[in-house]
């Protein structure tokens, strides 16, 4: 009774917020709706009994990826009216392409969606789905897992290559240098003759006198 209720809640919210991603006028609102739809998808995963995937979806997509996404979108100065320009022009073409795709896919899916092809394995055993994913990921799909890591490495190297620049004249803190500094290198003891007033002092006294 409660589970189907929640299913409809999550499903409806996913669809509605998915729509709002496209319909919202403000890009920041779009991203927020995107996050909401991620969140509701996670809810659907929970209802499916895939709680590990659900949590991963929230941690990775909502907690990290979407934050950065929001971060960037907030910083951009997007002029919505400018973006809408040319919308009318391209609309017919877009509609035609979209329609063709929909018709094709409908044809395909109504024709022979043989569900017995993709066999779902019943996982309701004593082993939790977290352990199950781990067992497959680190054995059967080990190579894919490692290659995914390399792809992320490439993304990181790429981002650094394209953005990092060492500007001149920027003061940077070098902590190891600071720590390895000794007293002898930094402190210089100078004996100052204290009896004769320096000329600077004289000048300032003269200035003071003029002011009075």
């Amino acid at each position, binding site marked *: 009774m*409660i589970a189907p209720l929640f299913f409809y809640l999550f499903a409806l919210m996913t669809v509605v917020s998915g729509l709002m991603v496209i319909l919202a006028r403000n890009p920041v609102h779009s991203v927020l709706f995107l996050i909401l739809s991620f969140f509701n998808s996670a809810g659907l995963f929970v209802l499916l009994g895939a*709680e*590990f995937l659900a*949590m991963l979806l929230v941690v990775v997509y*909502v*907690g990290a990826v979407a934050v950065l996404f929001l*971060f960037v979108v907030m910083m951009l100065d997007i002029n919505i009216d400018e973006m809408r320009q040319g919308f009318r022009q391209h609309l017919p073409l877009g509609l035609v392409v979209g329609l063709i795709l929909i018709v094709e896919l409908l044809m395909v899916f109504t024709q022979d969606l043989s569900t017995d092809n993709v066999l779902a394995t019943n996982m309701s055993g004593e082993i*939790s789905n*977290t352990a199950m994913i781990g067992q497959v990921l680190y054995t059967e799909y080990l190579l894919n897992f490692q290659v995914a890591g390399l792809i992320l490495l490439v993304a990181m190297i790429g981002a650094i290559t394209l953005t990092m620049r060492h500007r001149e004249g920027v003061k940077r*803190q070098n902590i190891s240098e600071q720590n390895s500094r000794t007293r002898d290198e930094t402190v210089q003891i100078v004996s100052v003759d204290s009896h004769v007033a320096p000329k600077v002092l004289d000048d300032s006294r003269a200035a003071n006198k003029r002011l009075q």
Partner: protein
Amino acid sequence: METITRFLTSPMMIELIWTVAQIFAVIVPLLIAVAYLTLAERRVIGLMQLRKGPNVVGPFGLFQPFADALKLLSKETILPSGASKAVFVIAPMLTFILSLVAWAVIPFGEGMVIADVNVGILYLFAISSLGVYGVIMAGWASNSKYPFLGAMRSAAQMISYEVSLGLVIITVIMAAGSLNLSDIVMAQKDMWFFIPLFPMFVIFFISTLAETNRAPFDLPEGESELVAGYFVEYSSMSFALFFLGEYANMILMSGMTTTLFLGGWLPPFDWPILYLIPGPIWFALKVALVLFVFLWVRATTPRYRYDQLMRLGWKIFLPFTLIFVVLTGGVLLGFGLLPQ
């Protein structure tokens, strides 16, 4: 009349009422704890700085939190005209709600938990990673400079420290062999995890300071630079919600530290006599201890500079925790200590 009684006594209804009762049993003490944490903070810091702190309202100033609440409630709620209204209103609610829902999986005693889910620790991690949205939304919706700067800082800071937080949690998971928080606590029956994983415990605590935007990592609200950061534009009840959320989050993080490293509801030694004191009391004592350290740190450390903050997160904590994850795994495997 009869139908109503039957409806009220139906198993589903009873279950529902029971759940609601459980939720209240957690939330009400929590909110009282939040109220007194604000008082404790002012008193503790006052004493550390050789002042008295608030001691006028009621005996020892014990009614001070209620006076503060009344003051806040009686103030006018201001919606800035340039603000994005809906987001502006939702942001504080989100912060507050998130700080409450996380408590669903924290075990206060053996079996004393609202939802004993299998992936409890991931749930906690997920909820704490959502906390950044309240801040970002508030900062953006205010449509004002200081809040936006605060939100930016906060987003970068929370994401940076979440990384090391996640890796620390992985070491705990490896040592406990479960993602269930009750199992993690039970795995500490012989030895609390803060002893074998001491460096991780320290990093975890420091990262929670950063996650909750507390001193010395309170740059998002740094009052000397950003006035009050992301909640500059908030007043009255919406400000109160942020305030409550922040303190509830502190308690939550302390609860997390307790559960992961300080043996949760378990007494310090495995002596039968100590079990006479119920688990929730032990839990509350440990949380209070961690909270005291929170306040202690605030009273004694200066604020970090922004680049130092990032350096600490990315260049020190991240590599160190990564190495420690490998090390923990290696030791557990090498000495045959892997759970199960």
